[in-house]
């Protein structure tokens, strides 16, 4: 016999009431904890995906769309820009590195990105098998692509036009897998990388009349962005270009300079993601408010449960006092009961939150693509646990105080 046995038996003697209290608190805690974990993971993903990219240069349109499309690969392109114009930006003295991106095709929902080897380098992508692409139509695939589509070195596939599945297929051109990347926990895991030339080659077949003829070489040196193409080739287009500044001066001068060009637009990932957060923040705040209301109601419910059970239990407590229990002991027993209830609610809530996230990341493709994991725990969750312990203590303070002050003689005399 000890205090824990006593408390657990008291909780077990009112199973429905106990279950209701735990469930109520668990729902509130689960909601808070889901918000915390999603928010954290989302921010971490965004930071790691936009790391090292100071500016995205693309066609005019929505700057946020430009970022979403070219960094996170979730939205559609704003349009194409001409390679010549991109080269002019890339040659600017404040640009340290410029990486071309050509989008437009997918293979079963996974985007095929035409780019340079710098792109793999930017994300520190390491090969687990094979090598990077050398010739057009050779691809390197992210680890999630390899796993989801069961592709291995040497596998061949044809792409579909567009960025989502089940559209017009480019049956004539076969891509071949040359390399598979290690899991990096960023956007590269879900991409198929290839040279810019591959994208041109696939599309050249059906806009044969306009751009299939090889442009005459006007300069002996190749393009700085796509070396196989002559510098100043006016027939080629790309979707966007990722830019790294040489110095902090770039942040001040470059966007304005790019935006002043008639056909180009520059968008800063840092600025646009901050804007995205502030837009999402409103929804998150409403959900947080709702969760706070749930937690408050469950606190009230725990308080009422203890308060009511104390009325029934006055005689129990008086008997316990008559058997030698001190005031402090009965005070602690009521306090512990509330705290155990709150702690159980919090633990169930956090388990619930992570199960819900496991379900979401398993069944919702966007969440899986974003790499949301249910097995990551954050210090905030420790804070939630501590907070609910405190909540339990606060809720049971008044009932415990009443237990402390109980007049044994009056209760036992039946007054």
């Amino acid at each position, binding site marked *: *016999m*000890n205090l824990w*046995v*006593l408390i657990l*038996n*008291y909780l*077990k*003697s009112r199973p429905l009431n106990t279950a209701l209290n735990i469930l109520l608190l668990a729902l509130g805690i689960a909601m808070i904890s889901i918000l915390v974990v999603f928010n954290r993971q989302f921010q971490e993903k965004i930071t790691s995906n936009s790391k090292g990219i100071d500016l995205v240069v693309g066609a005019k349109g929505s700057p946020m769309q430009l970022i979403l499309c070219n960094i996170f690969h979730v939205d559609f392109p704003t349009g194409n820009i001409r390679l010549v114009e991109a080269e002019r930006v890339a040659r600017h003295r404040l640009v340290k590195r410029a990486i071309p991106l050509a989008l437009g095709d997918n293979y079963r929902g996974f985007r095929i990105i035409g780019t340079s080897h710098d792109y793999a380098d930017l994300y520190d992508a390491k090969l687990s098998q094979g090598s990077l692409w050398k010739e057009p139509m050779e691809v390197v695939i992210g680890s999630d692509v390899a796993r989801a589509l069961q592709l291995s070195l040497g596998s061949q596939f044809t792409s579909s036009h567009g960025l989502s599945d089940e559209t017009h297929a480019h049956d004539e051109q076969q891509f071949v897998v040359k390399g598979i990347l290690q899991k990096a926990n960023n956007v590269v895991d879900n991409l198929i990388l290839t040279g810019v030339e591959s994208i041109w080659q696939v599309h050249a077949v059906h806009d044969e009349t306009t751009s299939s003829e090889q442009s005459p070489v006007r300069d002996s040196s190749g393009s700085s962005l796509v070396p196989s193409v002559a510098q100043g080739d006016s027939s080629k287009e790309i979707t966007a270009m990722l830019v790294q500044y040489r110095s902090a001066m770039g942040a001040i001068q470059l966007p304005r300079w790019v935006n002043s060009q008639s056909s180009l637009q520059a968008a800063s990932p840092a600025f646009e993601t901050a804007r995205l957060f502030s837009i999402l923040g409103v929804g998150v705040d409403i959900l947080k408010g709702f969760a706070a209301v749930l937690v408050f109601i469950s606190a009230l419910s725990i308080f009422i449960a203890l308060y009511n059970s104390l009325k029934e239990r006055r*005689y*129990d407590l008086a*008997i*316990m*006092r*008559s*058997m*030698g*229990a*001190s*005031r*402090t*002991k009965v005070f602690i027993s009521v306090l512990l009961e509330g705290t155990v209830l709150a702690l159980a609610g919090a633990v169930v809530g956090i388990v619930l939150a992570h199960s819900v996230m496991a379900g979401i990341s398993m069944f919702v493709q966007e969440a899986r693509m974003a790499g949301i994991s249910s097995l990551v725990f954050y210090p905030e969750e420790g804070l939630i646990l501590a907070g609910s312990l405190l909540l339990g203590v606060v809720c049971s303070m008044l009932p415990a105080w009443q237990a402390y002050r109980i007049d*044994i*003689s009056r209760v*036992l*005399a*039946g007054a």
Partner: protein
Amino acid sequence: MITVSSLSYAYPSGETLFFPDFNVPRGKSCLLLGNSGTGKTTLLHLMGGLLRIQKGRVEIDGLDIAKVSESALDRFRGGHIGFVFQRNHLISALSVKRNLLMAPFLAGLPQDEGRVEEVLAQLGLWEKKNARVSELSQGQAQRVAIARAVLNKPSVIFADEPTSALDDHNCSRVIQLLLNVSRQNDCTLVVATHDHRLKSVIPTQVELYAKKHPA
């Protein structure tokens, strides 16, 4: 063993009761007789340390219980005094065995399961040790309450109207049970009652009157 001298108690309402002086030797039993309103329960609670003594002396086992601190009194109650109340209140959330183990647990004494089985056997409840309290009959519940009172081998058992709600047959069974376990466990038994059927069983008696003035 128990000595009461010049004891009085003032209720919050202002009414004051004066109690007679008396003395109960170790191992003996004593009846506190009186009609309702004569302060039987108050006297019992004063002697058992459930009410603080305002005036006068109560000595139990050589300890003047008016002089000790509240927490010392709690400890003293746990180790030296057992109570049997009119309502046999058991903790319904716990099994019979755990109800009994509450006695040493709350008193801060070692919990001896052998002692629990011994007392249950003395009261013919051995086969009920794992039963839920709600499964017990009225009589069985009363026997469990008596078992709980003697479990810590107290020097005194205070019983408040243990028989007044019972018929003649059960009345004599319960009082015999109380006398037997007190003897077996070497306790002094003090029974407060208005039940005159007990007069013939316990010869040592203290009569209480509603005395508003000192004797």
